[in-house]
C-alpha cells in the first residue's frame, strides 16, 4: 500500500474540487477550499516521511538518530497558517455579501439576473 498516501492526497483534492464545482452556498465553498488544501498537507507530509525514523525533534533522542524531513513539516506549518488566514478573510467577504444581497447562493448572485 505504498501508494495510499498519494491516493489520499489526490482524493482530498478531487473531492474538494467536486464540492466547489457543485457548491450552492459560499460558506460550503470555503469549506471545500479547506478540504482541497488538506490534500496538500497530506502530500507534503507523505513526501517527507521515512520508514523507521522518529520526529525531527531531538529532545528525547540524541541528534543523529534517523528522523523524518523537517523542511516539509515547516512548509505544512506555513500552509496551515496561510489557509486559516485566507479562510477568515473569505468568511468575512461572505458575511458582507450576505448583508448586501441577502443570499450566498452563487446562482442567485449573478449580476445580470438582478
Amino acid at each position, binding site marked *: 500500500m*505504498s501508494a495510499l498516501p498519494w491516493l489520499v492526497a489526490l482524493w482530498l483534492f478531487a473531492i474538494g474540487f467536486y464540492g466547489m464545482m*457543485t457548491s450552492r452556498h459560499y460558506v460550503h465553498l470555503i469549506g471545500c477550499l479547506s478540504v482541497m488544501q488538506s490534500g496538500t498537507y497530506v502530500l507534503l507530509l507523505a513526501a517527507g516521511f521515512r520508514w523507521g525514523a522518529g520526529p525531527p*525533534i531531538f*529532545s528525547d533522542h540524541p541528534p543523529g538518530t534517523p528522523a523524518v524531513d*523537517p523542511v516539509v513539516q*515547516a512548509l505544512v*506549518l506555513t500552509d496551515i*497558517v496561510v489557509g486559516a488566514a485566507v479562510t477568515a478573510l473569505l468568511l468575512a467577504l461572505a*458575511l*458582507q455579501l450576505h448583508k448586501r444581497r441577502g443570499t450566498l447562493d452563487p446562482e442567485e448572485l449573478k449580476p445580470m439576473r438582478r
Partner: protein
Amino acid sequence: MSPRARGILATLAALALAPGALAVLRAMPAFGDHPLPYGDAVNRIAPAERIVSNMVTAVNFDLRGFDTLGEEVMLLAAVVGTVVVLRGSRGEGVGDRPATCGDRPIPPRSEAVVLLCRIIAPLTLLYGLYVVLHAQLTPGGGFQGGAIIGSGLLLVWVGEGYNAWRRLVPGVVLHALEGGGAGLYALMGFGAMLTGAAFLTNVLPLGEWGSILSGGVIPVVNFGVGLAVSGAFGMLFLEFLEETREPKDGEEP
C-alpha cells in the same frame, strides 16, 4: 452557465487531466523510502550549529527565517483585510452594549458552563504560553502556541459573555500584540544588520543545549510570532463577534 453545463465541463476537464494525474501517481517515489537531502542536511547541521532540538523551528525561524517573516506579514495583511471588510462603515467605534440578535432573547449562561470555562480558560492560556516559549525544544512554536492562546481567549468569551470579554481583552491590546509581534520579528532582522551581519543573521549567543533561551534569535523571533498570532486570532474573534450585535440607531451595519 447552468449547473448542468458546469458539471459536464468539469467532468470533461477531469477526464482530460486524469491521465496526467495517474502518470504522476505512478512516477511518485516509493512512500517512506526515498532520499531526503534537505531534511537530512538540516537534521545533521542544525542541532550543533544552532543548539536547538526542534528542527522544524530551526527551519522556520533561522534557516528560512526570511520566508517566515513574509508569512507573518501575509497573516497581518489577511487579518487587516478581514478587519477592514467587516468593519465597513461601522468605523472604529466598538461599544460595550450587550450582544443581541434581533428580537431573540438571550438565555442566561448555565453555571456549569461558567465554572468549566473559568477552570479551562486560564489553563489553556497557560498551555499556549508554554507551547510558545518551548518552541526550540519540544513540538510547538509561535504559530501553534498563538493559536492555542486564541482558543483560550474564545473560552473566556464562552464563559463570561461579550461584555466581560471586551473588558478583559481590550481591542487596543490585541492591536498592539498583532503589530508589535510582527514588528519584533522585523526589528530582530534589522538589529542583526546593526552588527554588520546580513538580515536576520543569528547574532545572539546560542546558549546551552536544552535551555529555554538556547538558539540565539530563535526564541526572540518565535516569541514575536506567538504574540502576533495570538493578537491576530483575538482580532478576528473581536470583529466576528461585533457582527453578531444589532446596529444602534443610525449606525451602518
